[in-house]
C-alpha cells in the first residue's frame, strides 16, 4: 500500500492570512486534546475549503457542532471517539461533577426543610413523606460517596506508594483543603444554627440535629440575600467571610475530586465498582428528586412559610433534574467506554 496523497489541495502560497486566522478561530470549538491530534491537518483542510469556496455559515455551524460534540465527549457525555480509557475516566469525572452540583441543590432544599421542621408543624403528611424520602435518599448518597471514594483512595494511595503519585499531589491537596475548610467551618457555624433554639416538636426526630445544622452551615451562602446587599451588610463579618469562603472550599473539593478521577489509575474491577455505585447514585438522585417534587406540590398547597418553595429551590429542582439526566448519560458512556477498552479504565 502506498502512502502517497492523491489530489493535492491549493498551493500554500495562495492562502491568505485571513483564511488561516479564520481556520484557527474555528478550531477553538474543539477541545485541546483533539486540536493536538488533528489540529494542523484540520486547519489545512479548512484553509483549502476557504480558498476554494470562500467562508460559509453552514460550514462554520458544522465545525461548531462537531467541535461541541468533541467537547461533550471529553466530558464523557457524547460518543465522539476518544481513547476508551480516557473516555471512561472522563465519564466518571463528569459523574462526580453532576453529583456534586446536585449535592448543592439537595443540600439547600434539605437544609431549608430541616430548619422548617424544627420550628413549624407541617401542614400535611405529604410534606413529611417528602422529607422522609429526601432524607433516605441523602443517607444512601452519603453511603455511596464513601463506597465510591474507597477504591479511588486505595488506587491513589497505591500510586503514591509506588512513586507514581506526583500527578495526584495537587488535586489531592485541593480535596484535602476543601474538605478541611468545609468540615471545620461547617461545624463552627453549625453552632449558630437557627434550629438550636427551636421547639422540640414530635416530628423533629426526622432530622438529626447535628446533620441538619451542618447542612445549614455548608449551604448558607446559597441565599437570596446576595440580591439585597443592605440586608447582607448587617450580617456579622465572620459569617460574611464564611459565606465567601464556603463556596471556594466547595469548588476546591469538587475540582480536586474531578482531577483525581481523571488522573488516577483505576483497575478494571475498581472501575466496574464505580460504575455500579454511579447507577445506584442515579437511583438515589431520582428518589431525592421525587421527594423534592412531592414537597413542591405539597408546599404549593399552602404550607407554613418555612416550607414554601422559593426561586432558589425551583432553580435547585432544575439543577437536580439536569443532574439526574447527565448522571445517567455519563454512567452509560463510561460503562460503554470501559467495555470497549481491553484494559478497562486502566491508564495505558
Amino acid at each position, binding site marked *: *500500500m502506498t502512502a502517497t496523497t492523491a489530489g493535492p489541495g491549493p498551493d500554500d502560497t495562495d492562502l491568505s492570512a485571513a483564511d488561516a486566522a479564520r481556520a484557527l478561530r474555528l478550531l477553538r470549538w474543539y477541545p485541546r486534546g483533539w486540536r493536538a491530534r488533528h489540529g494542523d491537518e484540520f486547519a489545512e483542510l479548512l484553509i483549502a475549503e476557504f480558498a476554494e469556496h470562500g467562508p460559509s455559515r453552514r460550514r462554520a455551524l458544522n465545525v461548531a457542532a462537531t467541535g461541541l460534540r468533541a467537547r461533550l465527549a471529553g466530558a464523557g457525555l457524547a460518543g465522539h471517539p476518544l481513547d476508551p480509557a480516557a473516555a471512561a475516566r472522563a465519564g466518571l469525572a463528569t459523574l462526580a461533577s453532576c453529583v456534586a452540583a446536585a449535592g448543592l441543590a439537595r443540600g439547600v432544599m434539605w437544609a431549608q426543610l430541616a430548619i422548617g421542621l424544627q420550628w413549624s408543624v407541617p401542614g400535611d403528611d405529604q410534606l413529611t413523606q417528602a422529607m422522609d424520602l429526601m432524607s433516605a435518599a441523602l443517607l444512601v448518597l452519603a453511603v455511596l460517596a464513601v463506597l465510591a471514594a474507597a477504591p479511588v483512595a486505595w488506587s491513589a494511595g497505591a500510586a503514591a506508594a509506588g512513586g507514581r503519585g506526583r500527578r495526584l499531589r495537587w488535586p489531592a491537596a485541593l480535596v484535602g483543603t476543601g474538605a478541611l475548610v468545609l468540615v471545620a467551618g461547617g461545624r463552627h457555624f453549625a453552632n449558630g444554627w437557627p434550629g438550636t433554639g427551636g421547639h422540640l416538636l414530635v416530628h423533629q426526630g426526622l432530622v438529626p440535629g447535628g446533620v441538619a445544622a451542618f447542612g445549614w452551615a455548608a449551604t448558607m451562602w446559597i441565599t437570596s440575600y446576595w440580591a439585597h446587599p443592605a440586608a447582607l451588610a448587617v450580617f456579622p463579618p465572620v459569617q460574611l467571610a464564611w459565606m465567601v469562603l464556603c463556596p471556594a472550599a466547595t469548588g476546591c473539593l469538587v475540582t480536586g475530586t474531578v482531577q483525581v478521577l481523571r488522573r488516577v489509575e483505576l483497575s478494571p474491577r475498581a472501575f466496574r465498582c464505580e460504575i455500579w455505585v454511579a447507577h445506584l447514585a442515579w437511583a438515589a438522585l431520582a428518589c431525592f428528586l421525587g421527594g423534592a417534587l412531592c414537597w413542591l406540590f405539597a408546599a404549593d398547597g399552602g404550607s407554613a412559610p418555612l416550607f414554601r418553595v422559593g426561586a432558589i429551590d425551583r432553580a435547585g429542582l432544575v439543577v437536580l433534574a439536569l443532574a439526574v439526566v447527565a448522571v445517567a448519560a455519563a454512567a452509560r458512556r463510561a460503562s460503554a467506554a470501559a467495555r470497549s477498552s481491553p484494559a478497562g479504565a486502566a491508564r495505558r
Partner: protein
Amino acid sequence: MNQAGEPSADRSAGQPRPRADQAGALETLGRSSGPASLILSSLADGAKHGYALTKDIEVFAGVRLAPGTLYEALSRLEAQGMIEAVESHDRRRPYRLTATGAAALSTYLEAQRKVAEVGLRRLAGSWALA
C-alpha cells in the same frame, strides 16, 4: 479484495488478519456510518489526506462532506482501527485503510449490494423501471 471480504494479497502484507466480529463494525458507527463508508471507499485505492478525500468523495458519490463531519468520521474510524494515519512531513496527514477497515467495508458494501439488487429487481418487475 475478494468476495469473502478478505484483503487481497498485495494490500494485506504485514497487516493483521481481520477478525470476523470486526467485519460488520461499520454498522456500529451509527450516525457516522454514511460518511464512514464513503471515506473507506475513497481510501480503498490508496492513502489520502482530508482535502483529497473530500474531493474524491465529491467526484464518485456526488456528496461534499463538511469538514467537521469528515474529521468526526475519520476520528471514529481511526479509533476503531479501520484506518490509520500515515507518517508525513506535511501538515496534511494522509490516512490509509487497514485490513480491518477493508473487511468492514466489504461486508457493508455486500449488504448494500443485496439491498440494491432486490430493490432494482422488484422495481423492474412491478414498475418497469430500472
